[in-house]
């Protein structure tokens, strides 16, 4: 069963107020895409946890150039669904494995075209219990 979202209501209720400065103040990853999946915001927490700098990813296609293992039915499929329908508020678990040390994350996707043209991906990384922390 999915845990409750880690994103505060104040953020979800006001997506038009999310900008780079505000995003950098959050402890979890925030990525904002336009309708073509180009990265518009890549916050400091996401940069620190992914090892990619904002300069490297801004303006690039998230699914084909930044995070290839998200070009999947679940991850990109939900993005496309949200863009087509004009709104999306969903969260799911995702395990990133492609070319990196496996990372499990709780992903919250949020899009409301009436409030903001940006599609938001909030990412909270989780350490698996079976992982060897030694």
């Amino acid at each position, binding site marked *: *069963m*999915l845990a409750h979202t880690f994103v505060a209501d104040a953020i979800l209720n006001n997506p038009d107020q999310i900008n780079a400065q505000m995003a950098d103040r959050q402890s979890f990853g925030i990525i904002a895409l336009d309708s073509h999946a180009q990265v518009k915001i890549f916050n400091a927490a996401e940069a620190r946890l992914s090892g990619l700098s904002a300069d490297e990813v801004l303006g690039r296609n998230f*699914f*084909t150039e930044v995070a*290839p*293992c998200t*070009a*999947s*039915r*679940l*991850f*990109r*499929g939900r993005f496309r669904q949200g863009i087509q329908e004009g709104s999306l508020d969903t*969260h*799911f*678990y*995702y*395990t990133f*494995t*492609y*070319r990196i040390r*496996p990372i*499990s994350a709780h*992903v919250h996707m949020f899009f409301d075209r009436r409030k903001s043209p940006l599609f938001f991906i909030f990412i909270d990384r*989780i350490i*698996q219990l*079976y992982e060897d922390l030694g």
Partner: protein
Amino acid sequence: MQVPAENQVINQFLAYADELLQALTDLPEIHQEQRQLYLVCLNSLWQMLNNAFQQDGGNFLSEQQIELLQMVDREIQHIENDIPEDFRNQLHLLLRQMNMDLVS
């Protein structure tokens, strides 16, 4: 512990593909094409497995599923060493732009 059927299928696929490549090494004129086709197959396999394992996002991948994806990824990286970078990049772009419903 019993090995999941999916792991057995993947292992058999990789062994079969490897044997097929070995059997065809007497045809050097198409060796590069074989490697490229094998790379396409492996990348598609990785996409299909990732889609199947992630399902609807209700659970994380298991340790076995992660190991399997990484095994295929290691094989992809091994093959990529023999493939021109330009072709590799074109292939990656093509596969990532494909309709995900086709590889699920």
